[in-house]
């Protein structure tokens, strides 16, 4: 896969100036599916979801299966009709054709008709996006090269691997130079090298001022590329914001602290605050203590008390959660609340 070292394709789009201009706005969005013979069974897929994505951002939408991620994307693209609330894409009510014209979409598990080759598939989807065949032909070589399929343009898609199909899907989403890319599980079925290359492509697109709305199970990737994330669970947004904010699950100004201490165990236990998470003996007089949440004043006070009591402080470490850890904690917490 070759990422072209070219200037932003869409020169008209400001690279940084309009970055905070909202491209996707969702407010109190609700979706209820109806099922059964008489459509009496109701399934609430989205419950008052609100979020905003600014121009030029890479936004990651996280959530377990059935959280409502795909439903949210489909409402934005007009594939599913909302039940209540508001959703806007590029300033237009979601689903409007004028909005869709500026969006590239890669659905999860997409199917490209079996009779098409890489080239004809791009021609077909390019025409559907309103491009002329000549424009498509001009763009497709660059795109196929970008996604690593430059030698596969004439091959019928039935001969493609799952990863190759995913790359072709990505190429068709980028074909008409959209302002917004909505990618549902873009690295699904792609090997680690391919994933890295796709990440690279996303970063290039970001540099070109494109807004990317990413939906993925692979939290590490989200963490690596996204500016903002939202965690969706059972149709509700549990947390939304920059990755650092989402991974910080402590109270404001607090963080998780780990201390390596040496001294009398009973003395140490008597000095620790109520928020202590764990106290493990690592040697005859050595202890590792984790405190879930402690602000700077608390840390200073604890250090003073420990030193006054003759306890040696070997190390003191401020702990940071990964996105995956934060996600799991949030989801498990929400599950516990539910139960």
């Amino acid at each position, binding site marked *: 896969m070759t990422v072209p070292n070219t200037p932003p394709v869409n020169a008209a789009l400001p690279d940084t100036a309009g970055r905070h201009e909202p491209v996707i706005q969702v407010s109190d969005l609700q979706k209820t599916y109806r099922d059964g013979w008489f459509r009496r069974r109701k399934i609430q897929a989205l419950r008052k979801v609100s979020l905003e994505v600014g121009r030029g951002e890479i936004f990651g939408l996280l959530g377990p299966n059935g959280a409502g991620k795909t439903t949210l994307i489909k409402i934005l*693209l007009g*594939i599913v009709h909302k039940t209540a609330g508001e959703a806007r894409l590029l300033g237009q009510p979601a689903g409007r*054709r004028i909005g869709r*014209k500026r969006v590239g979409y890669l*659905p*999860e*598990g*997409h199917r490209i008709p079996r009779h098409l080759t890489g080239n*004809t598939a791009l021609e077909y989807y390019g*025409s559907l996006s309103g491009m002329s065949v000549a424009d498509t032909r001009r763009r497709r070589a660059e795109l196929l090269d970008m996604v690593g399929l430059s030698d596969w343009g004439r091959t019928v898609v039935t001969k493609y691997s799952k990863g190759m199909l995913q790359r072709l899907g990505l190429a068709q989403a980028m074909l008409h130079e959209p302002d917004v890319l909505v990618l549902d599980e873009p690295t699904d079925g792609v090997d680690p090298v391919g994933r890295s290359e796709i990440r690279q492509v996303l970063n290039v697109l970001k540099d070109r001022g494109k807004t990317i709305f990413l939906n993925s199970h692979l939290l590490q990737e989200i963490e690596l590329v996204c500016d903002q994330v939202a965690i969706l669970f059972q149709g509700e947004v549990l947390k939304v914001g920059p990755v650092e904010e989402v991974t910080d699950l402590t109270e404001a100004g607090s963080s998780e602290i780990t201390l390596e201490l040496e001294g009398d165990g009973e003395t140490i236990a008597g000095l620790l605050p109520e928020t202590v998470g764990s106290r493990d003996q690592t040697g005859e007089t050595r202890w590792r203590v984790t405190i879930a949440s402690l602000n700077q004043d608390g840390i200073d006070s604890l250090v003073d008390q420990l030193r006054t009591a003759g306890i040696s402080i070997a190390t003191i470490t401020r702990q940071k959660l990964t996105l995956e850890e934060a996600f799991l904690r949030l989801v498990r917490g929400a599950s516990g609340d539910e139960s």
Partner: protein
Amino acid sequence: MRAYLAVIKDSFREAFSSKILWVLIVMIALFLVLLSGLSVAPAERTGLDFPDVFDWPELATRLRDAEADSPAGKLRGRFPSELQDNLRKFKLDGENRRVFRDLRRQLNEQLDSDDFATAVVVPEDNLSDEARELVGQGENMDSKTRQRLNRLVLEAALPNDIRPSPGEVMTPTYIGFEIFDDFTLDQKQLTQVINTALQVFIFFFVSVMGTLIAIVVTAPIVPRMFEPGAIDLLLSKPVSRSLLFLSKFFGGCAFTIVNAAFLIGGMWLIIGIRFDVWSNGLLLSLPVYLFLFVLYYSVSAATGVVFRGPIISVVMVGLFWFVCFVVGTAKDTAEQFEINGSRIHTIVPVDDALLASNSAGDLQIWSTESETWERVFDPGSERLGGVAAMAIRAQQGFPFLGPIYDRRKQRIIAITKPTPVFMPGGGPSRMYIGRPDDNWSRRGGAMLRMSPRSIFLSPEGEILAAGPAGLQRFTGDAETPQRPFRVFGLDLGSRSDAGRFVEATPEEMPRWNSPFAATIDQNRGHVVIYSDGTLSLLSPEKNGDRVVYTPGANRDLETDEAALMAVAGNTLLVALADGDYRLLDATTLEAKTTLEGPEKPRWAAGSPDGRFLAVLSHGSSAWLYDVANGQPVTNTAISGEIRAMAFTDNSSLVVGDLFMRATNYKLPDFSVEASYDPPLSTLQSVYRYALLPIYTVFPKPGELNNVITRLFQEDSTVAISGNNDDLQADQVEIDIQTPLISNAIFLIIVLALTCLYVSRKDF
């Protein structure tokens, strides 16, 4: 628009990537190669078969009675002495089967001989142009040409007995080899045969098999488009959902278009090149077939959108076909077994009673006591049943000419229509009589040698029958039973000479041409003949004890349309098939005026008081004209769907509509004098109030075949007998509007509902 064209283009790409398409293309190509081996080669019509003779007993009688130096006598002189003896002893009521067989064999031997034409000398004036041309070749002719000349000489020697055979004929060949021995066709027959074969082919191989294959092959196209992963990708594009579906739907027809165009276009080209028959009907059947396919495919696509499975799509198409088939068959069956039999066809006012016939030819009399129709004029032992009756009906429709009422002798007279002798129950025309004092039972059976088109009574009460072959009057006893002479079930003539039809015109009168019509002016006794656009008056003149109709005034109407005629007072109406109604002076044939009337008249008459002229068309439209004030008459009584009309003796008008219902109106005020309204049977009620409304609103894919049939016809109605020049013969109206409109409405509704579903559905 670009996006939708891309979807259609992609459908063609998909079709061409299908292996099934290429398999079918190869099969069609193979079929076309095989078809291209068929052709025709020029041939000569020689030899003589049983159907080539109008009436074998009449021929035998003529040969028996011929003067020795006449052409017929010379022919007889060339027969072996045994056959000559048998002919000399020939009697109509004898056992003659062997005589006819020997006669046919001997005639064929004569036709093969080298000196036949020179031995049986026929005056040159009697020879056809073709025969004269062949005679001009002298001795330089091959045996086939000589046999042809012999046949033409035989036709000229016995013009009233041997059917004339066309000159330029062909015989079908395959890769240069003749397919049948002694089988020839002229170009018109060849065109008819090809058109009939094409209709059958289009029906079975294109409409039925082609649709079935196309539906199975195309069933997955729409469900595949609506699969998860495919549809959301398409719907994310800036396109309209409805137009996306419609583009895919019409694109889905690509497979069918390619195959059907290749098959039909290829056939059109090969048949045009090989047979010089450039059938527009064949070409036009392509869009009709595509419409038929689109209709079924709309059901398949709608099912595919909802259930997203090709198998259920095919099953639903099958179910749709079945329901349409059941509704159509129920209607047709009800019509065949009950409704057609109760459709009034002909009304015959008889003094104080009323006779009417249904479409099946069953004559019935109105019973004032039971207020129903009671059947009369039963053919008794001559009645045909089962296959024979069906064959006759399929061939000729309403079986009679008439009946007419002979007030003077208080009897009705009807003439059966001729049918080919080789058909079960077939045979020449026969005249039957029914009398009220005998409960109108059928008697008589005198044979006519020609195909009559009109039967009427002269002012003197003579029975006259007219047809292109001449004007004949009946002499003798019409009521004496005359049984047909049958060989292997073939009616070859009469056994009796109790009464017969003889020429009513001078012997030198030429035959008339088709289109033909005849009527009689009851005031003056003139017979008016319409022959190929020319009117002729035949005036009765006494010649000893018999009346001879001699030619009088002529007028060329400068048309080649078929016509019907009627006389009222001194006005002659010539109602042409194209709706051009000419009014002329009945004595001088001077043109009076021209009016517009219903096309394709099937009955025309003048009122006995000479004031009104009435016409009824094959399209069930009535037309009435007031001769006295020179204006057409309009009234609601005759504005509906009229099935039969007749004038009574006192010039009131009896009008019949669908279920054997008739009303007698006094003219000109249309006050009702009598009505004849039998109660509806249960089946008739079910038909009228349930079956017909359901059928009307239902789609009619099967009836699109009528449209294809219509494409191979010149006219919107087709004579059951195949002779469109005979306007009195029953015609089947090929209704192309109803199936086209009802199917188009169904298609629009299905597509609109599917678009609505697609636009509202969450994918």
